[in-house]
Structure formats: structure tokens, C-alpha cells
């Protein structure tokens, strides 16, 4: 599946629910499916510190694709990072850099993206793109 096909799937999945509670229940379930980070990477170097919850994100680059694993101490945040990983993990650095993450807006998570929310979503997106850029630079 392409990145945008996955984004569209997520949008469709969330569109079944009108109620916010149901959307959050879905996020909680997604959090449970998150490819969990190896405990040895749950260290400061891989910590994306938001004001409210901690997120650890680890990139593994095999020369072609970047695979992300992650964890958070808050379950909703774990759901949000799981969505990002669904969309952006196992992609090439170029794909990751070029991706427009329109699904965030479409499923109503945009409020979580504002810099003042400081739950780390914005920092997570930034960090994923930074890793992609760094691996890209290493290639050239």
C-alpha cells in the first residue's frame, strides 16, 4: 500500500465514529498494536519530550527503508504515535520527507498538533522527518 492509501484507510476507519469517545477508544486500541521499542532504546537519546507525556522513538535504517519503533507512557499518545508509524514506517527517507500528513487533520487530531498542546505530536512528526533527512544526507 502507498502512504496515501494507508492515510485514506485511517481516515475511513475514524469516519465510522461520530462520538469523540469512540475515536479515542480506537486510538487506545491502536496504541496496543504499536510495534514496541526495544527497552534498551527507551533512553534519553530517543526521548521526544513533550510537556505532558514521554515518547521514545527509535529509527532503524537498512540502507533502503527506515523502520520505526516507539513507546509512550500515556496510552492515547501511544495511539497517536502508532498512527504515525503505520503511515511512515518501512518507507524510504525520500518518501518520508515528501509526505503530507493530511490524515491528522482529517481525523480531527489537528488540535493535538498545535505547538501549545505540547503532547509531542508535532515533535514526533518533526523528529521522524529529521531522522529521514539525516539518513538521506548520510546516503549522499
Amino acid at each position, binding site marked *: 500500500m502507498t502512504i496515501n492509501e494507508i492515510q485514506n484507510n485511517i481516515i475511513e476507519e475514524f469516519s465510522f465514529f461520530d462520538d*469523540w*469517545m469512540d475515536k*479515542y477508544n480506537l486510538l487506545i486500541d491502536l496504541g496496543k498494536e504499536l510495534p514496541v521499542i526495544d527497552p534498551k532504546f527507551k533512553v534519553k537519546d530517543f526521548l521526544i519530550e513533550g*510537556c*505532558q507525556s514521554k515518547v521514545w522513538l527509535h529509527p532503524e535504517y537498512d540502507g533502503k527503508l527506515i523502520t520505526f519503533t516507539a513507546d509512550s*507512557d500515556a496510552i*492515547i*499518545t501511544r495511539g497517536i504515535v502508532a498512527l504515525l508509524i503505520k503511515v511512515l514506517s518501512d518507507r524510504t527517507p525520500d518518501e518520508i520527507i515528501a509526505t503530507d500528513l493530511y490524515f491528522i487533520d482529517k481525523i480531527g487530531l489537528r488540535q493535538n498538533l498545535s505547538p501549545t498542546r505540547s503532547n509531542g505530536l508535532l515533535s514526533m512528526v518533526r523528529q521522524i522527518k529529521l531522522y529521514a533527512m539525516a539518513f538521506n544526507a548520510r546516503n549522499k
Partner: protein
Amino acid sequence: MKDIAEIRADFPILSRSVYGKPLIYFDNGATTQKPQCVLDAVDEVYKSYNGNIHRGVHFLSDMSSEAYENAREKVRLFINTSKREEIIFTSGTTGSINGIAFSFGERYIKPGDEIILSHLEHHANIVPWQMMCERKGAVLKVIPINDRGEIILEEYYKLLSSRTRLVSVAQASNALGTVLPLKEIISAAHSANIPVLIDGAQGIQHGIVDVEAMDCDFYAFSGHKIYGPNGIGVLYGKEKWLYELPPFQGGGDMVDKVTFEKTTYNDLPFKFEAGTMNYPAAIGLACALDYVSGIGRENIELREKELLSYATLRLSGINGLKIYGTSERKISTISFHIDNIHQYDTGMILDKMGIAVRTGTHCAQPVMDRYGIEGTVRASLCFYNTKEEIDVLADGIEKVKSMFV
């Protein structure tokens, strides 16, 4: 006293809904909502008589100046001091404390001098003193707290020394709700001739504050936490201190005579009010104080006490919920944590039920460190809240538990 329906009708925002649910506003410790009369008062300034204060010879400037000085008079009466010179308008509690920390540091502090704070302080009553201490080579001393979240007075008495230059403590803890024993703190400091600053950000709105009876040397509070507009605060200082202290900001209106060689300063209180003050907010604040007096501060205290004990009862009945801050003397603030559920998760779900709470460290990281926790959920109630709302919160917490556990 007005009944609760009448009171709630005074606050337009309380009738709105969020995510299709009626708003339950339990974040009053962060900021309070405004009654219609405050909104009208601010509106009226801009509509009818806006003119910069203390400057113009024209009608509007005169009218604004008069309303601004009347606001000062209202504040003076509200906190009960005899001198209007002792009431300085600032941008808020943070502005007031920063100002005093700067001026006091410049005037009195030498290397090795000590400032005493408590472990309960909001960052606004820590960082300004830290900055000053760094500048002056002074040292911060911290009064420890016990497990109930109360300061340990015996430890405080031990901290007072010949190097202590000032004690600065909160009237009540924003993170835990503990009311501090100000009488004991102030009298012990005064018997050693040490002045005391009270951070009243979480005190002014919950009962009667009488600075003369309290005998504090400085008292700081914010307008927006007592149903007034944002961007206005008050610094009360005893005249003898304000007279001696240098201004913390330079600019227009605070001066007597300016030449490029030397400037002499205006009289109190204007010496500390540089630049164009937020006079519309000051006028709105005066109106908020009138509103609070109209409800009656004794009534507010009683009603909030009732809400606090009901909320404490309801929440402590929830399995796995722990309340942080269990002093006998508290403002209507309850900080709690649910076993194995991150406070951010709790807050996000409560939000979707229309319940506004604060989550995190509440700008009081040392308090969280003391308990070895990353943060709490805080419900800060005030007199316009109801027991029914507390019931919704308790049910909401049960729902949160069912979603996460």
C-alpha cells in the same frame, strides 16, 4: 446570597457546551471565568471613554485616569490597607514577584544572603528569586513539606538565620491546594526583622484577605484568577519598602524629571508603573472585586468548603484514586492520580466529556518531585461549581478507568 442558578447566569461562558456536552469548568486555579458585569466594564472603557491615563488634558484621558484611580481605591479597600500608595498595578502575580525580586535584590542583597521559599511554590515564586540569586550571589533556602503536603514549620524556624533577607511563600499551593500557615510564617520572620512576600495567586479569590491584619510586607495577585480580566495584577507593598526600593522598570509616567544625565522618579505608586498600564483591565478588575464582594467572601469561602469536602468524599471513594495534598486546610483544589493511568490520558478523556481539568506538573515541578510522580490531574473548583458537576467528574473518572484498565 444569590442562589447557584443566578450566580451561574452571571457567567455567560458557563452555559456553553463543548463536544456536545455541557461545559464543566474545573480549571479555576489556572484562570477563572468572568461575570457579565466585568465584560461590560471593559467593553465600556473602549466604547465610551478610552484615553491614555495620567497624560492628556482632554476629557477622555481624565475620565480614564479617574476610573483607573478608582480601581486602585477598590483594590485598596478589598485587601484592606490604609494607603493607596501601597497599591501597584502590574501585569499579574508573575510580574509582581519578578518586580520585587529584582528591586529587592538590587537594593538589599549581597553575596551569601539567603531567601527562604517553600517546597510548595509555583515556578513564578521560584524562578525570579533564582535569577536574582544568580545575579547577586545569594542562596535559596527551601522549607520542606510533609506527606500531607503541608510545610514543616519547625524546619522553617531552623532556616531563619542572620543571613535571611526575605521570605517568599504562597498563600495556598496551586498544585495541592494546601493553605499555608501565614500567621506563623510572618510572625517568626518579623521577630527577626525579615520581610515576607505572600504570593496570593491562589488565595485572594477564596476568602477574605486583609493585608494589614496579615501584616505581610508584600502581597501579589492576579486579576484573572479572581474573575477579572487577564493582563492585570496587583503588587501590594508596605510604603516603607516601596519608598526605599528602586523601580523595576523605566519608562513614561514613572518619572519626575528626565534629563540625559539623571532621572528622578515619580511618587508612589507611579514610580512602579512605567509605560501605559493596562487600565481597561484594572477597571475590569475593580468590577470583579465588587462582584465578589456582592456575593460575599464569607459566602464564597463556605460554599467552596462544602464543594471541597463533597469532591474529596466522592473522589476518595473511587478505587485506585489517590489524592495528593490532604491537609486539613485547603482551598477548593484537588490534585489526584489514578493507578496505572497517565494523567494526560485521564485529562484527554475527561475533556471529551466536557470536563476541563488541568494535567501535568501545574508549574510546580518540585512538588511533583517531592512525591516522585510525573504529574497529577487537578480539579480546581470555585463557588460557581456544583455538586452535580462533581458527580459528573466522579462518573467520568470511572469511565476513564474502564477505558484504560
